């Protein structure tokens, strides 16, 4: 008895000398929307293919619903996949495509008809059963791929960048639709994507991957607010990195000196020694700008450039000789854009806990 839908224990996949997946351990809960996030070539798709059974791990074990998979072929695993390019059978109608899995499981004809029309209803494609995949739009094909997998009522649904081929507007709509669908059917989703915004929007938890390894697992908030490494902080959203040296300690905070002139006080969440090279990460939206110094913690700077982007205004502000940070301010009031002109001297302020201390 296990509460995990999927478990990977030290799973690795080597292709010749290339290590695609490197000792990955993951525990995915039942009913969870779990994303594998990372740049292309990070091993996220290979990890998904290991779960589906299209690849067998070079080392390590994979459990689905508590059962060790070993060399179980894909057609005996209680998971279904939504492929990146949908992989709809072009010679079959939509009905035949969706019915394929049930037919292979020798479900009775009447029940097949019933379940196919139910699931086509669910993905909002009723009455499309007679068409061929080539007669549908990209978004519709995507729904058919989803229906073809969901009709089998799998314990776990694997999705390999299912929205990658859709245009931005449609993708946004489908994100919400998928999330809503997942909540309704209660199936565990394992979702592969390189789009950090997509992962943040949809997931219960995210595993960030790079070079075949899992760098951090956590909720979207944890991943965004408390990135464990420079790569995670950089890959998820936008971040300012200030490189410096630890020069002092005051209670739970350490003093980091940037470029030899600027001292920042950062909460020390990890053990650091004096003179250690560290990086301080601050999100652009966490910084506020002030014409007068609000307190002793504020950092002075000069506006280099102002970029208006509609919802926000981005300021590039030079702190010291080499260090420039980005600050993002929401344009709340009309005409508030460019309230600091280039060349203005001002002060930057952020909550101490907004700054993350990372190893350099």
């Amino acid at each position, binding site marked *: 008895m296990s509460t995990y839908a999927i478990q990977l224990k030290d799973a690795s996949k080597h292709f010749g000398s290339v290590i695609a997946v490197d000792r990955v351990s993951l525990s995915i809960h039942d009913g969870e929307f779990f994303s594998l996030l990372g740049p292309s070539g990070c091993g996220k798709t290979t990890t998904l293919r290991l779960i589906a059974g299209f690849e067998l791990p070079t080392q390590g074990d994979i459990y689905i619903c508590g059962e060790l998979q070993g060399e179980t072929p894909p057609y005996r695993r209680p998971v279904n996949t939504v492929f990146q390019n949908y992989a709809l*059978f072009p010679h079959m109608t939509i009905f035949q495509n969706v019915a394929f899995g049930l037919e292979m499981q020798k479900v009775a004809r009447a029940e097949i008809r019933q379940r196919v029309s139910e699931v086509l209803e669910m993905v909002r494609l009723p009455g499309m059963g007679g068409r061929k995949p080539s007669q549908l739009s990209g978004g519709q094909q995507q729904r058919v791929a989803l229906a073809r997998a969901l009709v089998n009522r799998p314990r776990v649904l694997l999705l390999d960048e299912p929205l990658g081929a859709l245009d931005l507007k449609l993708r946004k709509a489908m994100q919400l639709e998928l999330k809503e669908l997942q909540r309704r059917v209660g199936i565990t989703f394992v979702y592969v994507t390189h789009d950090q915004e997509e992962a943040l929007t949809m997931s219960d938890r995210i595993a960030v991957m790079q070079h075949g390894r899992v760098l951090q697992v956590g909720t979207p908030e944890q991943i965004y607010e408390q990135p464990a490494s420079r790569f995670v902080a950089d890959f998820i959203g936008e971040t300012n990195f200030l490189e410096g040296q630890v020069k002092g300690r005051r209670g739970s905070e350490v003093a980091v000196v940037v470029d030899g002139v600027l001292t920042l006080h950062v909460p020390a969440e990890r053990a650091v020694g004096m003179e250690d090279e560290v990086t301080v990460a601050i999100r652009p939206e966490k910084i506020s700008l002030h014409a007068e110094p609000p307190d002793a913690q504020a950092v002075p700077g000069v506006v280099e450039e102002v970029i208006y982007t509609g919802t926000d205004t981005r300021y590039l502000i030079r702190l010291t000789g080499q260090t420039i940070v980005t600050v993002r301010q929401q344009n709340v009031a009309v005409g508030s854009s460019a309230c600091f002109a280039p060349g203005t001297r001002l002060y930057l302020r952020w909550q101490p806990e907004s700054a993350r201390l990372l190893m350099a």
Partner: protein
Amino acid sequence: MRSNKRQAGKVQKRRRGRWLNRLLSLHGVLGYIFLYAPIVILVIFSFNASRFVSDWRGFTLQWYTRLFGNQAIGAALRNSLIVAGASTLISTVFGTMVALAMERYRFRGKMAFDALLYLPIIIPDISMAVMLLLFFVLAHWNLGLITIIISHVAFNISFVAVVVRARLAYFDISLEEAAQDLYANEWQTFRRVTLPLIMPGILGGALLAFTLSIDDFVITFFTAGPGSTTLPLRIYSMVKLGVTPEINALSSMMLLASMGLVFLSLMLQKGGKGGMDIV
């Protein structure tokens, strides 16, 4: 002013383009005449009432009726159909298997196999014919329909494999993965997904094999025995006594049959394309 000049230049260019187009059309027409005039003449003279090709004495169907009455030709046609049918069937099955193996698997010596696969296509017919004859003699096999069929299979496998491979190159492997993901085992995946999708390629290969087999002279000539004369061999022995309108009639019939086959294969390819998402 400037725009006027440009206009004039455009008109001139268009005029020159028109002339070039006409020359190009003429070239095309001449090319087709060169290709098809002999065939048209052949067909016309198969209806000639005169025995001689040199003069036209009015329309007749007598050469065709005589043709159907000719038992030697009937037997040759029967042999040709047996050889072509059997060799097509065998080489299509094996050629498809070879294509799948070459396209899907990595194995030791694959490069060598790959190169060897093209050998029967590029090797001169006469060399292949001599080799096969030598083989049958050394193996103490009596020459006859069986040896012809084996020889035809030997070269047809390559042609089928090449045609089927071309189709497989466009095959999206994730379709097979999708089938396996949907609980289809290897055999079900092949029968329900792979085979239907590469069928146009297989049929194309089969038709090519059939055409090559029914048409083959050199290899058949070397590997045929008594009583296994095929149509091309029969025609050759008839021509030795002079070209008769009867041969024209026979050739016209074969022309009609092969055109029918080509048309059929085009229709099949077209039918398959509707389902395939390839260019």
